């Protein structure tokens, strides 16, 4: 095993967290997110502009000489914790992490800089549920043009450029205006999926699809754990706050032992999730030999915890938790969708069985 991972947050990372949290507090309140996801434009482009232009967050993973910030997955993880805490409807994970990682694997030219600056939003045209290493759908490459239909593409509705794997083994950059993008009605209103139809669309070859997709999906899975951590933390904190105020039987509901034990248990799960998520981010940042194991552990652990946290939050809020006006449903929908995104916990356990030599019967 490689050197001990650094599982703490540096002062710079805490400063970054504070800056992102302040911005989200001012520009991404729950009522606003609920109103937005019911509109025709569920993504918050203004907020994305502030994050990308204002703070340079879209280019965290891109080296400075290619127009980015030259930061690491550790900083990206901190940003995702805060975006998860706010269920922010912005394409950070899909564009600044997954699409960017795919481009970093090949010859992206100006496109990498465009994504890094936030001038363009990119998305990898692979269904959101797939883990790294699994088979993905490809389109037909014929006479220099692309033909086919792809579904389950996250944030495609706001993408300027689609990174599309084709049947010749190449990954192509396709201008979104050359494709037909139709929103799908999605479980997670804050990270909606879309159908992409290519009917003779021109594409620019970026390189081999397989290594690029694998790298992108692995980073997506690793860093999704930090989003799930932020999400779980919000639901726990908010539920604790509510149960200190809410009275039934002439006592604060949070004073009943049955509920205290459930919340303490949840806290323990969140504490463990923080260590697992931090380990995955650090492993990617340092290029550790242990990265595949760290990612599989983080995803196999994170998804059930985030879903449990959101489900407990809804239940423990009682009737108000079932209403549309209370934001807990946004978190439940995001948590459940996240539990499928970039591979289920079961898929990551299966990967782990190979990695740590615990073979199936």
């Amino acid at each position: 095993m490689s050197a001990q991972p650094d599982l703490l947050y540096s002062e710079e990372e805490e400063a970054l967290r504070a800056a992102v949290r302040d911005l989200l507090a001012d520009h991404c309140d729950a009522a606003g997110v609920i109103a937005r996801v019911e509109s025709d434009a569920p993504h918050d482009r203004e907020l994305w502009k502030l994050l990308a232009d204002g703070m340079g967050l879209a280019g965290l993973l891109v080296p400075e000489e290619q127009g980015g910030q030259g930061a690491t997955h550790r900083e990206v993880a901190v940003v995702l914790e805060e975006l998860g805490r706010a269920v922010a409807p912005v394409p950070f994970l899909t564009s600044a992490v997954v699409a960017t990682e795919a481009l970093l694997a090949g010859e992206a030219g100006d496109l990498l800089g465009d994504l890094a600056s936030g001038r363009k939003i990119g998305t990898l045209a692979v269904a959101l549920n797939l883990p790294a290493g699994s088979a993905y759908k490809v389109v037909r490459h014929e006479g220099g043009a692309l033909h086919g239909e792809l579904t389950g593409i996250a944030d495609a509705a706001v993408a300027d450029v689609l990174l599309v794997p084709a049947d010749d083994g190449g990954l192509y950059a396709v201008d979104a205006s050359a494709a037909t993008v139709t929103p799908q009605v999605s479980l997670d209103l804050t990270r909606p999926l879309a159908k992409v139809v290519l009917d003779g669309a021109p594409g620019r070859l970026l390189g081999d699809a397989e290594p690029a997709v694998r790298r992108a999906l692995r980073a997506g899975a690793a860093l999704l754990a930090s989003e799930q951590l932020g999400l779980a933390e919000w639901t726990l904190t908010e539920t604790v706050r509510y149960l200190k105020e809410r009275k039934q039987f002439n006592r604060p509901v949070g004073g009943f032992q049955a509920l205290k034990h459930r919340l303490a248990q949840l806290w323990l799960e969140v504490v463990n999730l923080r260590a697992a998520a931090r380990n995955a981010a650090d492993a990617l940042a340092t290029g550790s030999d242990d990265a595949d194991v760290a990612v599989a552990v983080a995803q196999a652990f994170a998804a059930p915890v985030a879903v449990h946290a959101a489900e407990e939050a809804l239940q423990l809020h009682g009737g108000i938790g079932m209403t549309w006006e209370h934001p807990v449903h946004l978190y439940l929908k995001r948590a459940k969708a996240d539990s499928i995104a970039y591979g289920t916990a079961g898929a990551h356990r299966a990967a782990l069985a190979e990695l740590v030599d615990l073979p199936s019967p």
Partner: protein
Amino acid sequence: MTDAAELRRRTAELLAAFPPATTDRVDFLRARFDAGLAWVHYPEGLGGLGAPRSLQAVVDADLEAEGAPDNDPRRIGIGLGMAAPTILAYGTEEQKRRYLRPLWTGEEVWCQLFSEPGAGSDLAALGTRAVRESGGEWVVNGQKVWTSSAHIARWAILIARTDPDAPKHRGITYFICDMTDPGVEVRPLRQVTGEAEFNEVFITDVRIPDSRRLGEIGDGWKVAQTTLNNERVAIGGMRLPREGGMIGPVSKTWRERPELRTHDLHQRLLQLWVEAEAARLTAERLRQQLVAGQPGPEGAGMKLAFARLNQEISGLEVELRGEEGLLYDDWTMRRPELVDFVGRDAGYRYLRSKGNSIEGGTTEVLLNIVAERVLGLPSEPRTDKDVAWKDLAR
């Protein structure tokens, strides 16, 4: 301020003056204590140099590299982990000088006379009485239970009721008890595992001089909090490699015995492997926080996590072993000095780990503590708080 370089210089001096290869074990340990390299964060003259606690690792690494003897912290864990910090915090200068050195070298083993048959999780309900005689001596009568190491201990930390008219938390006083006193009777307590790791201790007219009181009369509950907080740190703070805990043996069995594998067990094994790895990383994160001087509240949860994991993992291993799982290695009543999770079979691990959610605070009580102290949720309604101990229903 003593820094790492200074500590390394002193360590080199110690090794030069007392080469481990030719020095008697106890002589070396005494010299290490006298050099202030036993626990560097303790004061000078008491085995330390008032250095930051995090620098202990620097000393330990250099000593280990040179093959220096260790003081067997497992056998003397109660002394090191619980008695020592309490004596340091509440003892008189004379008490600190008398007890800390032989405690640290392992020449004197300590045990803890806290729990009673009627006072476990509700420890403040204890009924062992200490009555002060006119000469100033205390006369103690009562029964304690779950006392590990009592049969080899030279000293015990003891809490007893000194004022039955006060509410239960206020009438308790903290003492150091001489285990060689004829009024102290230690009987083995046989457990579900078949062995007798713990004891019952019967205390009959044991006389304790007032000079062996720790802290003020009636202040024993506050003093005991120091002991108990350190107990939980000791249980949760260990550093483990991957598969270093109970998941190790079952993973090994899985790899070596393909004929035992089933799909159901595979799913459960992988799930527990992931949880064990997350708990290990959490313990490592906690350790890094302590080293960085930012202790987090995670320690309160680590014992909970390891207790549950140990039980689930050992239970899985008994099932995995199939026909062998129906057998047990040895029901002979023995008196182990250490809890041996590695040298015994899966059946032993399964049975012994049932104690992990009881010893050092039950899981139910610790969940309350997390809920109240970490999450700030309201405490349980209390019916015993302002009632004299003697008037409580029993």
